[in-house]
């Protein structure tokens, strides 16, 4: 036993190995493909179905009041509320503003919670944390994975919205905003993922193997923030919106990342 030789891994190689674990797991797991497929298919189905229902009159059987169902008029309604003249309603916090690309923020909550709780439910966390003294690597890797998958969801939703719009024959006209605004709006949403994901990571590492608790906690806890997504990332987004989202993402990722690391260091990981 005289030839025992301990070599400490560098921080970068330690983080790289943790990222390798998560990337391999994500690629081998059906969860990622399912969630990305949902992100792609949802806007197509929603756009086409809502277009088909356009003009349908619904009558309340009790009051006899008739309601005309309005379908979408513009493809970009799947990305955000269309600005009215003067842009006053561009960031409206109505239900329709939530039933669009912003649902990806709820989808990513489910992904992060299941992705993390699976580590603890399967017992893989024992292998991870026995050999890995640095809990921070785990938090960084999960956060980066969450943000990446979240960004992919947003991009696929965007593509799905275009496909849906094309199938339903909706207008692609950018009314009250430019194409640059649209790109900045998408970038702002991607940056905003960095605000949401650390919250879900923190809740998940605290709940550990109890996936239902982390999902309920994430959806419940994030609900107030979900409501603000359309406000923070309107279709008329400017560079300032994007930069603010980026700054918020960095602050949340670092701040809550330390909190998650602290939770892992001070609680049993099995």
């Amino acid at each position, binding site marked *: *036993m005289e030839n*025992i030789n*301990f070599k400490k891994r560098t921080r970068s190689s330690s983080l790289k190995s943790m990222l*390798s674990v998560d990337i391999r797991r994500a690629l081998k*797991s059906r969860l990622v493909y399912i969630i990305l497929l949902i992100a792609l298919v949802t806007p197509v189905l929603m756009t086409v179905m809502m277009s088909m229902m356009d003009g349908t009159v619904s009558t309340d059987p009790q009051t006899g009041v008739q309601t005309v169902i309005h379908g979408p008029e513009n493809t970009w309604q799947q990305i955000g509320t269309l600005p009215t003249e003067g842009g006053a309603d561009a960031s409206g916090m109505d239900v329709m503003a939530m039933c669009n690309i912003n649902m990806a923020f709820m989808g990513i909550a489910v992904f992060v919670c299941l992705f993390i709780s699976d580590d603890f439910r*399967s017992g*893989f*966390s024992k*292998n991870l944390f026995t050999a890995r003294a640095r809990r921070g690597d785990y938090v960084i890797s999960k956060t980066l994975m969450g943000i990446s998958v979240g960004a992919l969801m947003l991009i696929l939703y965007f593509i799905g919205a275009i496909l849906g719009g094309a199938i339903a024959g909706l207008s692609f006209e950018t009314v009250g905003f430019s194409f640059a605004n649209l790109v900045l709006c998408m970038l702002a949403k991607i940056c905003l993922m960095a605000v949401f994901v650390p919250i879900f990571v923190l809740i998940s590492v605290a709940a550990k193997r109890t996936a239902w608790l982390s999902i309920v906690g994430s959806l419940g806890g994030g609900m107030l923030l979900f409501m603000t997504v359309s406000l923070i990332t309107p279709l008329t987004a400017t560079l300032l919106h994007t930069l603010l989202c980026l700054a918020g993402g960095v602050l949340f990722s670092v701040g809550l990342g330390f909190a998650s690391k602290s939770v892992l260091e001070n609680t*049993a990981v099995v």
Partner: protein
Amino acid sequence: MNAVEIRGAVKRFGEKTAVAGLDMTVPAGAIYGFIGENGSGKSTTEKMICGLIKKDAGEIRLFGRDYTDEAVRERVGVLIEAPGCFPSLSVFDNMMLAADNLGLEDAEAKVIEMLKLVRMEGAAGNKYKNCSLGMKQRVGIAMALLGEPYLLVLDEPLNGLDADGMRIMREVFLDIVKDGTRTVIVSSHLLSELQKVATHYGIIRHGKMLDEMTADELDADCPTYIGIRCEERGRARALLGIKYSRTEEDEAGFLRVYDNVPTEDVVKYLFEAGIYATEIKRDRISLEEYYIDLMNGGR
């Protein structure tokens, strides 16, 4: 050098004290049989050694360094309770994840090598959830061995294995330590199996170390005896008690003579008294008997 040195370790879960001032010394290169009843603190101790739970007090050193030392941690392999595998992934993919975690170069070759060591190379493509219990345990050991650990912590690796599984596992244990660079801590309730491989023992009770010994010390403490089954057991026992210094009757109905005398002398002595032996054996007190005796305060 000691692979593990624990002094006064304490771990509490709320009101319950799982480990209460435990001292433990595991020499490097040993196969350390860690024995204790359910709830005695074995798993908690092992989890503390692996850094999976934090101790409340005391000191834990691995190879002379603090147990939280990053460099040391990377050379600890673990199989606690069950192998940490994803059920829907194949054995190979699960092994590759473990290899990624350790940042191994040439990971595929290492994974195949370890699967060969545990006689699982033919099942690499099987989904983990479709493996038998014995196969799963072997995958767990292969995973624990991936990073060429200096210390392996195996909690109940023999649980639920059939006779063949036990034999394979025994062979694997001996393969693991044959180059002398690894230390293995293995806890099990199957003491007869443990006795076949362990070089050192630690017996824990109520979170405290009751006894630690080498296999040689255990042998010295577990004397050989002559066991005789015969009719007229009562008279035979009385006769043996007169001539020999330490005799007793065991649960299987054998009269035991612990004195270091030739077997034929004892048989002849009974024969001359008109008592015929129907069964004769020469045996040694087992680890199980030693353990039960210790638990009952007999030592």
